[in-house]
């Protein structure tokens, strides 16, 4: 029943995306592990981790597309959920270090010893267990989104005001996590990880496994999002995006729908963050920065909002361009390019790359009724 539910909402583009990610998820780790280092088909571990990072961003972009492209909630603070998931994973990894840290304390992480803390704060209890940590990865962002959303959507805060207060939310978390007294590593963050579920975090096999896991989660996230969007619930959500008051007057509880989508999206973002941290090796409070969250929005905008595949595509393309730009002679011009992308995409390509390509494609064929999930260019 679930497979029917998931597959029935798939279109050719989605299937192609799934096939691509599945192929990448299998081939890249194999190539990294089995191929000899000099071979042209070999993917180096560094490249693999880099692409793992891109795929985490792709999952984050899908989660944002779910709320923005399909529900019209422009959240400028999704980076907060990403970072919270990352911190949950980071706390688990810190507990795994045990006595191998610089100060050799079996219970307290290094930064706590450095700050002269005597015992572990209560909110760190339980993070030595992997299942608990994974539960927190889902629960913490989800809970924050639920509470925030419950207040916001019930009071019908919409549009620009909502965007501003999501920005305020992530900014407040940034300030809070930067404080050394909070017990989350302060401005240095959590780093120097050793083990994940017993495997060495730096080992090649572990990294390959993490990459494969990221692909699996990306596929899962895509399927969930597609499932939601293609279902009857999804239809209502799209209606809320296009004409909120009308949907409300038709009798639907708009705030419930929004809350559901917002919470699911936050959990997804949390998972993305959790996979991001072991591959990058550090989590620090600057992940909460409003600028990061706004960049996430541009990934979705570039790729094509309202098309989940487009969001993932945009995330990978923009981050790849960022890596290319910021290493080498073009480094000072990256911000110019990024700013120009913002302006260009909003002015000339409101549907993003995928949407515009789709539009051209549609124009060349005979006029047909629009397929499922195609967004109308409304607010």
């Amino acid at each position, binding site marked *: 029943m679930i497979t029917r539910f998931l597959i029935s909402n798939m279109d050719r583009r989605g299937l192609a995306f799934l096939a691509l990610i599945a192929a990448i998820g299998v081939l890249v780790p194999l190539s990294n592990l089995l191929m000899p280092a000099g071979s042209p088909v070999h993917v180096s571990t560094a490249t693999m981790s880099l692409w793992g990072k891109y795929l985490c961003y792709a999952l984050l972009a899908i989660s944002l597309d779910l709320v923005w492209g399909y529900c019209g909630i*422009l959240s400028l603070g999704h980076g907060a959920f990403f970072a919270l998931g990352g911190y949950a994973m980071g706390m688990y990894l810190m507990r795994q270090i045990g006595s191998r840290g610089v100060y050799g304390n079996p219970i307290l992480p290094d930064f706590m010893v450095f700050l002269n803390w005597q015992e572990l704060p209560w909110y760190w209890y339980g993070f030595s267990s992997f299942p608990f940590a994974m539960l927190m990865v889902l629960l913490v962002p989800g809970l924050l989104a639920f509470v*925030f959303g419950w*207040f*916001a959507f*019930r*009071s*019908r*805060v*919409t*549009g*620009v*005001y909502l*965007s*501003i*207060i999501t*920005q*305020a*939310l992530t*900014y*407040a978390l940034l*300030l*809070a996590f*930067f*404080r050394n007294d909070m017990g989350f590593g302060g401005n240095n963050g959590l780093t120097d990880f050793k083990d994940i579920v017993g495997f060495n975090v730096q080992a090649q096999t572990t990294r390959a496994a993490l990459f494969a896991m990221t692909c699996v989660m990306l596929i899962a996230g895509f399927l969930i999002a597609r499932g939601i969007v293609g279902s009857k619930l999804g239809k209502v959500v799209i209606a809320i995006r296009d004409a909120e*008051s009308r949907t409300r007057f038709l009798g639907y509880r708009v705030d419930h729908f929004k809350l559901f989508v917002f919470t699911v999206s936050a959990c997804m973002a949390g998972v993305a963050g959790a996979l991001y941290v072991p591959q990058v090796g550090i989590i620090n409070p600057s992940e909460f920065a*409003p600028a990061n969250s*706004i960049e996430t*929005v*541009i990934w979705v*905008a570039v790729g094509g909002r309202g098309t989940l595949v487009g969001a993932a595509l945009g995330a990978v393309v923009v981050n790849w361009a960022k890596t290319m730009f910021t290493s080498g002679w073009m480094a*000072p*011009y990256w*911000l*110019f390019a*990024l*700013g*120009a*992308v*913002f*302006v260009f*995409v*909003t*002015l000339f390509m*409101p549907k993003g790359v995928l949407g515009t390509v789709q539009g051209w494609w549609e124009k060349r064929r005979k006029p047909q009724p629009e397929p499922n999930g195609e967004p109308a260019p409304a*607010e």
Partner: protein
Amino acid sequence: MPSVIRLLRLLAVIATVLGAPAVARAQNAEDAFARFNADSFSDTARAIDILIQSAHPNAAVIIEALADGRLLAGGGAVVVKTKAGSFVDARSGQALAAEPAGLSAVRLNNNVRRVIQGALGGLGLLNPDPARRAAAAEAVFRARDLSVLPVLEAAIAKETDARARTALRQAQAAILIVKTDAPPFDRIAAVDVLRERGDQDALATLRALPGDASPALKEAQARAITDIEGKLALWRAGQNLWYGLSLGSVLLLAAIGLAITFGVMGVINMAHGEMVMLGAYTTFLVQEVIRARFPGLFDYSLAIAIPSAFLVAGAVGIAIERGVIRFLYGRPLETLLATWGISLILQQAVRTAFGPTNREVGAPSFMSGAFELGGLAITWNRLWIIVFAALVFLALLAILKLTPMGLQMRAVTQNRRMASAMGIRTGRIDALTFGLGSGVAGLAGVALSQIDNVSPNLGQSYIIDSFMVVVFGGVGNLWGTLISAMTLGVANKLLEPYAGAVLGKIALLVFIILFIQKRPRGLFALKGRAVEA
């Protein structure tokens, strides 16, 4: 015993002031000069005493020079090297043409220094200048040296200047507090004098009361301490309030342009912080030009910078509106993103042109320094910024209420379609509003350049606060922005002593997030169906 020696020394000062044979004086002074040449610490200390006793006219100059290491002696001669570097003969006070040969500085050790301190203090109490007398009394107040008491009392009896007399009485009170064998009535009177003084030093002095005081005295001390602490707490609260007002005025300047733009056009301009930054950099450029070409005009640099910043920021704003925002009409969220992109471009452009480091913007002379108002320390630059913010606010109020353009702006804010139907060119109003909002941001930049670092990141530090002010205050009314800015500024600063700056800020952010739930459109929201569209 050093205190007895000091007492004797000071009594000698009195004695000599009251008149002593000039010859005897001159002879004693000669002895002092000979001892300076002896190059031994005990001789130098003795020399100082003799110099004081002899009431040599140059005694004060010589002893100050000795303290600074500017007293030179050798071969019988004693020479003072002035701070300007010229040389003066110590005995006669005559200027010397060149440095005499064979001189070396008279050396000091801690004992000599102590003797110098005592001598200078004693000299100060009888100084002809009342301000110097008050200063010497202040030094005695802090030192609480029992041996100076007779001198003090004599000085008080002779004192004519009111301020000096108060200072002398306070010094006397400070000594009486620690003098256990003084008459009890005098000590209680001393507690009262200290309570009158009422500042932190008086508090410290009161607390220095020895433990064996009588119960009446202890009670008087306790009452006085509570009194002073209460007054100090009030002044501290007042100081925090002042800081809050100052911060509020800065927030007002930064946010009011944003509020106007948001009200008329419904778009949040994420590049608003960069307009502020452009205003600050304009100030920097104006000052650079003035420094290079017209150095005499430096005090007017701000007066020139204000219109320049307004024009520069306003022009950039109009360019943004005509170039980008006009095409995004009706899509506020996209406008938000586009303006964010523009802000990145502007930041990087400024960074490339001026470098990423802070640039120095100087303050004109009328904005430097501070003054005391009761227990408050008020800096001139912040005071002028508050005045400036008030003037800008009133000017904007006048524009909105009294000019035709203001009328059209208000009409478009309330109901865009109807205004357009009435013949108002909404496109033109949009451009002008954006220009006005950006121009005011430029003015904010001029003000901020005086109290903050001028760097490409200047805008980023104020943008979130500006958003909060606008979201909290609502866009219906300029007064809403004023109240919102002042409330947030004062609340922030009042929270700071209790929670720290960061937690205070977080608390305010959380408060605003919750407040929005109650009033989704801010304190002063526009009402009516057209607003919901």
